[in-house]
């Protein structure tokens, strides 16, 4: 049974871990999975559609919800989505994506770029 925590969730009235919006996204997933079980491609398309316009913060909440509900397939999928979103992207893009700023001391960043010079070939243009 994939959803041992779900029953508990519905019983729990004051549940801060999973807001209603997130629940409506995550919970229908296993039914959809069963319906299109044989056809992986269709599932992929469905998932891409679902998350096309989701902001990183929402993704984070989805990950936490899937983790809390112990729903491995959804968790894997959401994590992969984040990974795919930042794969091969530049440092500035990643900072914008997660909404953070560089907090290195002056000079530290240059040193690091030297240490990781090998990794900067083939990065996407923003």
């Amino acid at each position, binding site marked *: 049974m994939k959803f041992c925590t779900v029953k508990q969730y519905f019983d729990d009235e004051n549940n801060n871990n999973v807001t209603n919006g997130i629940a409506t996204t995550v919970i229908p997933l296993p039914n959809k999975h069963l319906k299109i079980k044989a056809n992986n491609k269709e599932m992929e398309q469905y998932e891409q559609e679902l998350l096309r316009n989701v902001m990183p913060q929402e993704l984070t909440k989805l990950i936490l919800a899937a983790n809390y509900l*112990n729903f491995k397939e959804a968790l894997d999928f959401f994590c992969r989505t984040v990974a795919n979103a*930042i794969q091969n992207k530049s440092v500035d893009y990643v900072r914008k994506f997660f909404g953070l700023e560089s907090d290195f001391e002056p000079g530290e960043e240059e040193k690091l770029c*030297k240490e990781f010079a090998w990794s900067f070939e083939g990065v996407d243009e923003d």
Partner: protein
Amino acid sequence: MLSCKSLLSQTINKKRKKNKSKNKNKNKNSNTRVSKKHNLVSKTQTYEEEEEEEDCEEGFNLKTSAAPSHTHGVQPLGNLYINPGSINSRNTGLGSLQTLTDELVLDILGLLGGTHLGVLATVSKSFYVFTNHEPLWRNLVLENLNAGFLYNGSWKSTYVAACYPSFDVSSAGVSGLRVRDFYSDYLFQSWLCANLEMKPEWLQRDNIIRRKGISVEDFVLNFEELNKPVLLEGCLDNWVALQNWDRDYLLQLCSDVQFAVGPVDMKLQEYFRYSDQVREERPLYLFDPKFAEKVPKLGSEYEVPVYFREDLFSVLGNERPDYRWIIMGPAGSGSSFHIDPNSTSAWNAVIRGSKKWILFPPDVVPPGVHPSPDGAEVACPVSIIEWFMNFYGATKNWEKKPIECICKAGEVIFVPNGWWHLVINLEESIAITQNFVSRRNLLNVLDFLKRPNANALVSGTRDRVNLHDKFKNAIETSFPGTIDQLVQKAEEKKAQQKQSFWDSVTDSKVGAFKFSF
């Protein structure tokens, strides 16, 4: 649930509140089939690197060549709470990811390739620390470079040296950037477990029965049939291996032979290079079931101790499951709690070095271990050291204490079938182990192989599903009537036990009941 004690020196306040916070974390199954449950450490765990590491009852000792603190300056969460007004650069540097647990962040990073991790390292201090987490690089090496790699001081360095050979790893150097204000229990714990020595009190209890020079009959009657572990001394005295097998000898013999080391193969000399340099929570160890086929001389320099010569799987010839391994591992390597496959019994002989053993009987699940109902999966804490830190203490107050011992060179331990066991090498060690089936546990093994989920549980052979039938038929052919004899004996024993139970519940003093009409 973890209660990690702090690294204390005598000047640190020893009063610790039992205020444990429990976070619900679930690790995804990554490469291994074992799922791990990992809860965060007590909030009050603190660590002061400035203080001298004095020999304190409550503290831990770091390995002698360990750095005095986390490579990049990671501190446990407890330190954050004793520094009022501090910001955790872990969070500020993760942006919208900060609400995720450390394990979830690492799960995401685990999906990225080496180049992507390298780029991310320059995003922020927090990303720098996370992307430098060695297990990430270890996975990348083991998954992508199994054709061959030379361990180069760290898994990250190994990966870069192998994938970017023109890049001079040493000159650009490890910047060794130390971040301030980064607090994380998970990452700190990971470093701690990689660098701790075994505490003396974990090694004190030695309550296994020891025997020397007993007869085979004595062993079978008093240990094998009763399914009791025993440590046997003096039965390796005629092993050539005991005289010869040291590092130099083995290198001379088979330095370029590929041996199985975890999920990959490595030449022996490459393996020694790794084991000399390694500093991690779960060091890889050499564990090869075909060592005697690869190097026949190795097979010829030891022999099965006389107590274990009955080896019924041998009726299957080449189709038998894996049954003998050479084990070589650095200090700290070993195996967390498990039960040996196929319901077999085992013996483990130490040729060099020493091993600490902890054993629980089949019906006692060790603390901190969570087998799935069908027994196919076992969830354990991340590393052996972590088990000792967080669960060993619980065994002191249990009625059912484990059997423990340190097995030294020249000694053999008998591990009866079904027993849980954990082993850790206390120093670099070489050993031979074999699993076997004798008439004493033949019926158990047949039952095990008959189980509906046998193909998941049965190990060491390619033809898992048919093993039961093959084995049973082969036994009938070579030893006709044996199985029936054993079944009959077992039923007689059961009947006897029933009788005595009945006797015990009736009042034998009263005369037999009689109807009287």
